[in-house]
């Protein structure tokens, strides 16, 4: 902890790091300290806050050319994707897969979902205690990169739906997760309920799961305000989507 004691030494290092006068080697070393020391990270943040004031003197500068954004996308997602307007790429993931391949896509999604749950039954609270798992509606919702983000489960005739986060979801304060369902026949999302952004939570369903989810083929989760007002449509893009599967 030679970097963070005494405080004067830490302050001097933080100041030099923030303004950029440390040598590259010392800067890399101190960056490693920052990753493990909240005290050091706070000291740097304090100096960055001071320096931020100097940005108000920023002169006019040439705007970045349009090619820069295309190059950013090409580096991250490939040239072909970069050339497409974003709207044309909307609705990727499971929804796009299902739309693409029709019923086959939906069936494939449900199969994948069931396979995931067989491998990780704890995600959906489906551990068997020697007998059969209870008939349930389950979903494993993935982000646009295909990473499973959360799992949902509701007993077929139950009025509770459990949402279990598989990874933390960074939401701004005051926002919660809203869960939506839709079917291939009617792709308009219907609100299932809202869940706090915690590792595991139960949503009280307005009607039994069978009534709400019986005809649904897909689930999606989107950020929403925490207020009590009802939602008629998602107010933000879906963070994750997945098939709504019947497991019985």
């Amino acid at each position, binding site marked *: 902890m030679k970097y963070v004691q005494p405080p004067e030494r830490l302050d001097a290092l933080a100041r030099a790091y923030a*303004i950029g*006068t440390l040598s590259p080697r010392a800067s890399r070393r101190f960056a490693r300290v920052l990753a493990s020391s909240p005290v050091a990270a706070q000291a740097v943040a304090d100096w960055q806050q001071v320096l931020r004031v*100097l940005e108000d*003197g*920023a002169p006019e*500068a040439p*705007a970045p050319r349009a090619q*820069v954004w295309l190059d950013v996308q090409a580096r991250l997602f490939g040239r072909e994707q970069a050339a497409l307007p974003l709207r044309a790429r909307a609705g990727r993931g499971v929804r796009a897969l299902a739309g693409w391949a029709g019923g086959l896509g939906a069936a494939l999604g449900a199969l994948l979902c069931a396979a995931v749950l067989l491998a990780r039954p704890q995600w959906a609270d489906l551990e068997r205690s020697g007998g059969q798992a209870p008939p349930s509606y389950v979903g494993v919702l993935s982000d646009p990169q295909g990473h499973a983000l959360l799992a949902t489960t509701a007993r077929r005739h139950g009025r509770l739906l459990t949402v279990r986060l598989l990874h933390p979801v960074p939401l701004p304060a005051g926002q919660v997760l809203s869960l939506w369902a839709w079917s291939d026949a009617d792709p308009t999302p219907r609100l299932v309920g809202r869940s706090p952004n915690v590792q595991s939570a139960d949503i009280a369903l307005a009607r039994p799961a069978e009534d709400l989810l019986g005809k649904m083929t897909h689930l999606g989760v989107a950020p929403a305000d925490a207020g009590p007002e009802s939602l008629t449509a998602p107010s*933000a893009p879906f963070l994750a989507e997945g098939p709504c599967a019947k497991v019985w």
Partner: protein
Amino acid sequence: MARSPHQPDSDDLARWLAHVALGDRRAFEALYQATSTYLMAVAWRVLQHRDLAEEVLQDAFVKVWHGAGMYDARLGAPMTWLINIVRNRAIDIRRSRAAALSDAHGDDDAAAPDATASPAAGPEQWLDTAIHRVGVQQCMGQLTASQRQALALVYYQGMSHTEAAQALDTPLGTTKAWVRRGLDYLKACLQGRGMVTP
């Protein structure tokens, strides 16, 4: 075409960053559209070279895509976080390409600073503008012109102490002391006015 940089809403930036951390490309595009002109100015000030500044911007947004989850709202505003990514990358490039830049400022027209976009004023003027805008000119007035000049060169152009000492033709130790004193004055001044947390 030069544009005046403006600062987007902090709440929007925080929300977009949260979505980017989840791989939301629409939020990523919104973040880019809202901040890229402002951040371009940060990079351009350090490098004074349009192509290199755009290269920095590109690198920075690739880093933002991969590292948005690292943003910690407790440690500062989202724009501060973004500015530091851009500025640090610009300083890295400035130092690693010092020789190339030196050439570029000489004979190579293709890589020369974009004269049409050059501001009329230099770092000292930028510092004065910032100080006046935030209303701390009285306490910063205690700094000598040389001290302000050293601080401006190091902050706005990302110069090392050695480079600033050479530019100002002063001993290295003196230059370091000027920069340190300038920053300490600024911090004390802002804290005294409740503009930053003590």
